């Protein structure tokens, strides 16, 4: 029983980490209908920049984080100026291809700027197990993962308020619904794109910090984007809470599958379980758990 609880908690925490990456996808998809393939690389790039700034300029963590946020905003502006602006009114598949190219450019840029070796990221996040849980209940829970969970909750609340209650948030949702109409009421697509890519850059930074602190900043970080895909299919591409809950379901599901199905059909279920689950969901509920319903008036 204790074992199951421990596995569940560990699954939830892993899920939060997936959600952090998935969030960045949702933001950009919501506001521009673009599936940003480069989201994972953005997390990697943010992580690399953060470590690089701390090492090369021996900045304290807080200063490096602020500087990295500035870099991510600059990056968003550049992406708008060099890529998105040129592709206004093109089919979504073209924009998707552009983000694919962007992923490679960013990866290369990260390499050139900061080198390609695995880097340790330590910005002073708590490490090790939570003592009292370990002592009193014999439960092993990583402090880092608790920090990630708390960060994720804060981020979701802030983003939800931003999207639902503010003028810019409303404009973001308007652009997501209908580019043309948004233009016609005087919403500047360029401004909106810069904002949304900046926000998603900051989210990528948070994901980069959490994953980087856990397993070092390295190239494989960009591949966690693949794990975010099933999370999105489960939660829905357009829902922020969906990204979180989707992540949790995947995280817990993986652990449970490993425990209960592992012995029966052989191990390593964790690697593919998420994709199977996503496939099943696609068949039953293609818009995901919380995705926007496709409105069709008859």
């Amino acid at each position, binding site marked *: 029983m204790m074992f199951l609880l421990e596995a569940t908690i560990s699954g939830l925490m892993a899920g939060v980490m997936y959600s952090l990456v998935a969030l960045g996808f949702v933001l950009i998809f919501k506001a521009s209908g673009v599936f940003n393939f480069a989201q994972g690389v953005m997390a990697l790039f943010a992580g690399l920049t953060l470590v690089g700034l701390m090492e090369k300029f021996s900045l304290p963590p807080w200063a490096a984080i602020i500087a990295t946020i500035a870099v991510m905003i600059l990056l968003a502006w550049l992406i708008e100026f060099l890529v998105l602006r040129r592709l206004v*009114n093109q089919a979504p598949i073209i924009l998707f291809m552009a983000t694919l190219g962007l992923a490679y450019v960013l990866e290369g840029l990260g390499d050139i700027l900061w080198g390609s070796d695995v880097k340790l990221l330590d910005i002073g996040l708590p490490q090790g197990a939570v003592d009292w849980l370990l002592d009193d209940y014999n439960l092993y829970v990583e402090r880092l993962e608790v920090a990630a969970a708390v960060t994720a909750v804060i981020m979701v609340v802030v983003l939800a308020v931003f999207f639902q209650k503010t003028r810019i948030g*409303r404009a973001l*949702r308007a652009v997501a*619904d209908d580019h*043309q*109409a948004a*233009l016609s*009421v*005087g919403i500047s697509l360029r401004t909106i794109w810069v904002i949304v890519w900046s926000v998603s850059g900051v989210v990528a930074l948070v994901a980069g910090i959490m994953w980087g602190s856990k397993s070092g900043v390295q190239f494989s970080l960009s591949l966690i984007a693949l794990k975010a895909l099933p999370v999105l299919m489960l939660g829905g591409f357009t829902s922020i809470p969906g990204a979180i809950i989707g992540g949790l379901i995947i995280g817990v599901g993986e652990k449970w599958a490993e425990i209960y199905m592992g012995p029966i059909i052989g191990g390593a279920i964790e690697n593919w379980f998420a994709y199977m689950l996503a496939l099943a969901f696609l068949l039953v509920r293609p818009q995901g758990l919380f995705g926007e319903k496709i409105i069709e008036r008859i």
Partner: protein
Amino acid sequence: MNQTTDQAAADTILSVNNIEVIYNHVILVLKGVSLDVPRGGIVALLGANGAGKTTTLKAISNLLRAERGEVTKGAILFEGNEVTDLTPNDLVTRGCIQVMEGRHCFEHLTVEENLMTGAYTRRDGAAAVKADLELVYSYFPRLRERRKSLAGYTSGGEQQMVAIGRALMSKPKMILLDEPSMGLAPQLVEEIFEIVRKLNEQEGVSILLAEQNTNIALKYSNYGYILESGRVVLDGDAAELRENEDVKEFYLGVAGADRKSFRDVKHYKRRKRWLA
């Protein structure tokens, strides 16, 4: 209408001078369209499908560029200032907003949120915006009842009201209204046009109206232009146009005497009338 004195210029809110529009660098859509909208007037832009009505409106509001269209010749003056190179955002800020054909509501936003997006460019504070929201609801009481519904689930008439109300939220001096009658029941069309007229009279909003429904458009406007394949072929006071034989025959559906082919008659008659 075509006086060039300062007095006339001051009373003209929008002036389009001989514009040519090309899509994708090759497709010539407007071949020299000129028109004027007097301040506080309702001007109708009439013509069949593909005549260039929507293109003219988009050229003015500058939504054209997002569709790879371009104004290659001529000038557009709004309140005496050249606006041909501005962004739609600039134009809305200056008080000229387009209500697009086919309504284009934000489907996943509620009716009220839709209206609020119209106030995006405003900088005069939440209180003023709130007051204008009340104003829009007073013109469209039906929208107040449905304010919490997603716009995507409202009826076609309600969506048209949302689209017009949303434009109104930007505190416009001028609205470019594209085909408000599209897909609506005749009764509803009348209702919408009555509200448009009220807006024009009470709020002083000038209106340039593109319509296929010539009958109703001429009923509610002061002046009309008739476009045919990218050119203005006829213009005049709305009352005159309604009595014009050509307009009657080709746009109001009052049949002329024994014509064989619609197109032949049209050309023949027009040549005769213009060249005479």
